[in-house]
Structures are given as structure tokens and as C-alpha cells.
């Protein structure tokens, strides 16, 4: 383009301040502190389809807004402007004379007199139709994403519930309590537990952890749970139950799984607990005398990896005032500072509870999980058994 010569350039720039005000590419409006319109430019008048004489001295600025916009203006815009003296980038809708709506962005400043007193509010109005259309797209996308997330969480919750028993059955002479601590609302964890009656005066139970999370883990968890229950009815002997599970899992989709399976047989003053484990964290036995110990069963191998995995057993005699806690490693692997919480730390923590009940153990560990907070990165399943100390009254069930 050729740069205009002197005279033509002067003619080009001849526009007065008044012309610049009236025909600016944005709207200008000034109003008194009570909102009465004092001055308005031609651009805004043409956008709104109003005559200057109908507005100046006759209408308030908020009259030009939609009713909802006016509510926003009075509850947010006006107080902020009064406190700050300026306000920028507020999205509102103005109403044109013919009823159509014009999405705008408003920026306002307060003009002050020599003594600092507020005199006039100056507002610039930008046409925001394109921006608003785009924002509406974003808003719709966000609302859609929120709905999807709610649905995913609902699904995860429902699925998780199907993997856990809705309530534990009563076991003669033994108090039982369980708790599931989900690490995430969005994903199904791979932890599980169950407790159920077997033939005669015997109950079976298990607690375990399938590696991974989400739908794949849930499929294996479900398979594991039903296999264990079916195997226990066939032959409740703990090692044969785990061998049965191992056979099923190694032939299905291979997936690591640690599990502890056991039976409860009530005795005259307590219960005999027979356990078998495949690589699971050792349960904590809290004796009535206040001595807590880890019931280690070395040599047990992970379930679902080797076709002829080896499993080991142990027998625990639960006497009056004794309690036994089974848990998954979400608890003992929780981050604490630079390190991890541990089986030993858990054992020491629970020693002070004696004589413990299943309820007091679960309550103490639930509190512990709250204290560990964000350090608990994985789901945690808890199952506790206890025998009442002598002289205690039966809990009302």
C-alpha cells in the first residue's frame, strides 16, 4: 500500500474525538451512580436499536440488561465496582429494543472528582456473540464430561458392591467385622473379602488382592470370589481351596493374586482358625494379654502364576479376648514421609488395643487410614475376628 502524502493523511486523521467516541468499534455508555444513563455512543445505540433520547436521563443502565443479567449485576457487578473502583471482563446479556439478546463483555471504571468522590461510571461494551457461542460449546462439553464421570463413578460403586458381601453372617461365639476403603471413586479396586457358612458348625472366609485396578481386575476378582466359594463347599480344607483357585486362575487370564483363606470352628471358649495363604500379608493376632504378633506363614506362593504353586497353612487358637485382623497391602504400603507404613508398624499400633474386639480393631484401623490420608494409594480391605473376653456381656445383635 502506498503511504498517503501529507494532505491526504491529515484528511484521513481528521476524525474528531467526538467522532471517535460515537463510531468506535465498541459501545460506550456512562451513567450516574444511581444508574441513570448520562451518555451513550452511536455504536451501542445501533446495536440495541434504541434512540438516544429514549435512554439518556430516562433509563438506568441495568434496564438494558436481561432480568437474570440485572440480578447478576446488582448482586455481583455493582458491589465489586463500588469496592474496587474498576471491574473488567464481565459477561452479560443486553436486551435490544426488539427483544433480541446481545451477549456482551463489560469493563467499567469509576470516574472520580477532585476530592476522590465517585461521580460517574464509564463502561465499555464489546460484542461477544462469537465468544459466547464458543463458551457455550465448552460449557456443554464440561457438563457432558461431568455427567459421564458421575456415571462412571456410579458404575464403579455398583460393581464394587457386587464384589463384596452386603452383610456378614453371624458366627457362633465369634465377633466379625469388615471394612472396605476405596482409594478412588472412579475405579474399582481389586481387593475382596467374604465370610459364609459351611457344612456343620464351620464358617469359611477369605480376603485377598488381585493385581491392578479397573474392569480387568474386577473380572478376575469376581472369578476369584465365586471360585473360592464353590471350592469351599466342595472341600473346605484351606490348601485344597487355594489349589482349586490356582488351577482356575492359571488357566484363565493370568493375573497375580494374593489371598488368605481360612475356616472358623467354634470351640468351648473360643475358635480354631485354620489358614492357608498364597503370598498374602501376614494377619495380626492381638492377644488378650496385649501382645500383638504377625502370623507369618513363609513359603506360600502367589496364586495364578505357577500351575503347581505351593501353599502353606497355619492354625490359630482364638481364646477369650483375642482378636485377629486380616488386611490388604493398601494399608501397609501406604506412603509415610519418604517411606512406607509397614506390617511391623501395624502390629505395634494394634498392641495397645487389648483386649480387642473385631469392632474396636476395625474402628482403630479406619482411623489409621484417615490419618494416613493421601498416603493410602491403593484400596484396602479389612476383616477382623474376635472372641469376647470372659465376663463381657454379649453385644445385642
Amino acid at each position: 500500500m502506498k503511504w498517503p502524502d501529507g494532505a491526504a493523511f491529515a484528511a484521513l486523521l481528521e476524525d474528531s474525538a467526538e467522532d471517535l467516541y460515537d463510531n468506535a468499534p465498541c459501545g460506550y455508555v456512562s451513567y450516574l451512580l444511581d444508574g441513570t444513563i448520562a451518555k451513550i455512543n452511536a455504536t451501542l445505540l445501533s446495536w440495541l436499536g434504541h434512540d438516544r433520547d429514549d435512554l439518556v436521563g430516562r433509563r438506568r443502565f441495568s434496564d438494558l440488561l436481561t432480568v437474570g443479567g440485572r440480578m447478576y449485576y446488582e448482586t455481583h457487578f455493582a458491589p465489586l465496582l463500588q469496592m474496587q473502583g474498576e471491574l473488567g471482563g464481565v459477561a452479560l446479556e443486553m436486551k435490544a429494543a426488539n427483544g433480541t439478546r446481545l451477549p456482551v463483555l463489560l469493563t467499567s471504571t469509576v470516574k472520580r472528582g477532585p476530592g476522590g468522590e465517585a461521580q460517574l461510571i464509564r463502561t465499555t461494551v464489546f460484542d461477544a456473540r462469537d465468544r459466547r457461542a464458543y463458551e457455550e460449546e465448552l460449557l456443554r462439553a464440561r457438563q457432558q464430561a461431568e455427567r459421564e464421570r458421575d456415571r462412571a463413578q456410579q458404575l464403579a460403586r455398583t460393581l464394587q458392591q457386587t464384589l463384596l458381601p452386603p452383610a456378614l453372617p453371624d458366627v457362633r461365639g465369634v465377633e466379625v467385622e469388615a471394612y472396605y476403603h476405596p482409594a478412588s471413586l472412579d475405579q474399582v479396586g481389586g481387593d475382596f473379602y467374604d465370610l459364609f457358612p459351611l457344612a456343620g458348625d464351620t464358617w469359611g472366609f477369605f480376603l485377598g488382592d488381585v493385581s491392578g485396578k479397573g474392569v480387568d481386575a474386577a473380572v478376575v476378582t469376581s472369578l476369584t470370589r465365586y471360585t473360592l466359594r464353590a471350592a469351599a463347599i466342595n472341600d473346605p480344607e484351606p490348601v485344597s481351596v487355594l489349589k482349586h483357585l490356582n488351577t482356575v486362575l492359571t488357566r484363565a487370564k493370568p493375573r497375580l493374586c494374593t489371598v488368605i483363606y481360612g475356616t472358623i470352628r467354634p470351640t468351648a471358649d473360643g475358635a480354631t482358625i485354620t489358614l492357608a495363604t498364597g503370598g498374602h500379608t501376614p494377619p495380626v493376632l492381638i492377644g488378650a494379654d496385649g501382645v500383638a504378633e504377625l502370623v507369618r506363614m513363609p513359603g506360600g506362593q502367589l496364586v495364578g502364576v505357577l500351575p503347581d504353586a505351593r501353599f502353606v497353612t497355619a492354625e490359630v487358637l482364638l481364646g477369650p479376648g483375642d482378636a485377629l485382623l486380616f488386611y490388604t497391602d493398601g494399608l501397609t504400603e501406604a506412603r509415610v514421609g519418604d517411606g512406607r507404613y509397614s506390617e511391623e508398624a501395624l502390629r505395634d499400633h494394634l498392641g495397645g488395643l487389648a483386649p480387642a474386639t473385631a469392632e474396636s480393631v476395625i474402628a482403630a484401623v479406619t482411623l489409621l487410614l484417615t490419618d494416613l490420608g493421601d498416603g493410602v494409594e491403593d484400596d484396602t480391605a479389612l476383616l477382623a475376628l474376635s472372641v469376647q473376653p470372659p465376663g463381657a456381656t454379649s453385644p445385642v445383635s
Partner: protein
Amino acid sequence: MDVLRRNNVVVTGSETGPVVLLAHGFGCDQNLWRRVLPDLAERCRVVLFDHTGCGRSDVSAWSPERYGTLDGYAGDVLEICRELDLRDVVLVGHSVSAMIAVLAANEEPERFSQLVLLTPSPCYVDDGDYHGGFSREDVDELLVALESNYLGWSSTMAPLIVDNPDRPELADELKNSFCRTDPAIARVFARATFLSDNREDLRKVTVPTLVIQCAVDAIAPPEVGLYTHEQIPGSKLVTLNAIGHCPQLSAPEMTAEAILEFVNGR
């Protein structure tokens, strides 16, 4: 639950004067009282707070269940009174907090000596002969306006500001940093504010009440203030020659004077 921290409670003013508890309305926080604060603090023990979810309150204590109705906010007011063991309280509620004050005073009338309802409306939506000034569609329009404005809200900055009250420069990094509210919380508060109907609660008020309204108010028009006054037995009505919904900002001297005159006349 630390109630004083949850609601960012501030106690200031005269040690010996009557206790005046100031409850802010929808759209802002306790900052809204700052122009009437000097006058009130000279003569009264002033207690300020932010509603849960607003200003510098503990946002983690907010839930849509508790704060989806005005009862949740009224419960907070009573909890603050109990925590500070406040008695003979003059409870001043602006805008929606006028109805929150009515609910609190009806729940525990023995705790309050006087109520001041500043630009109140017991029901914003028109209903038969009752003219509240708005339709259901108007309220929906407001919700849209709330969704399109973040005004000083940024989900990354907000926790920084709330957790570092001793570093105001953090707040200054955001424009419009007064009255920050998470848009999701503002939406729930807006619904509770503009869709509540507390007309039935007015008749049950037994605490001496002053209604203060503005001559021109687009949110709570004079006929709504008159209705509130007529429904509350024995109440007084003062109409300020002021414009807008927030006379404590636009006409602070007149507003403080009306409150103090009522408090002194008790």
C-alpha cells in the same frame, strides 16, 4: 469442626458494646460490610463471618446437601453464636441473609435481642397475588450469568489464597479478588437464595425486628420490603433514600445510622 475457622469469623470493635452479628448476602463475603464497619465498631462488639463456601471460609466444609437450603446457613449462624457464647445478639442479615436471620431467630429466639433485615425478600419469585419481582425463567437466566463469569475465581489460585491469609499479594494476583466464589458453589447458593419461599416464617418471628429497604432496589423492590414489615408482628420499617441492593456500600452512613438508632432504642 472448628466453626470459627470454617466461617472465617472476625470479632472486632468495642469490648463493652452490644453484640452485632453481620451476615452477608449472596454474591460477596464479609468485605461487603467494610464501609459501615467503622461506625458500628465504635459503639458495638461486631462479629463478621463468611458463609461456608464464600470468601475465605473453609470450602472443604461445604456440601451441596447442607448448603442447598437456607437452613444450612441458619445452622451455621447458630453454631457461631454457640461457639462464641454470644447472647443478646443483634443479628443483621443482608439480602438472602435476612431470611437466614429469620430462620435462625425462629429456631433459637432466646439468643437474639433484635433482628435487622437489610433489603430483605421472603420470596423472589412471583406467586399469584404476591409480587416478588422475578419469574422462574429469570432465575435460570441468572444461573447462566453465574456460569459464564468466574470473577476472580481460579481453581488453581483459590486454595493458595485461602491457605495463605497472611500473604494478601496472592489474592492481588487475581483481579476482582473480593468476593471470590467457586462458580459451582455460587450456583447452589443462587438456587437456595432465589428459589426459597420463607413467607410463612415471617409471622413466626418473635424477636423485635427492623426492616431497612432502599427507595430503589431492583432485587428487593419497596413493596417486598413493605410486605416483610407487615408480616412480621411489631416490626419497624425504614426506607433509605438510597439506590441499589447494597445500601451498606452505596449509603453507608445512612445504613449504619439506621442500625445504631434501632440498637440504641431497645
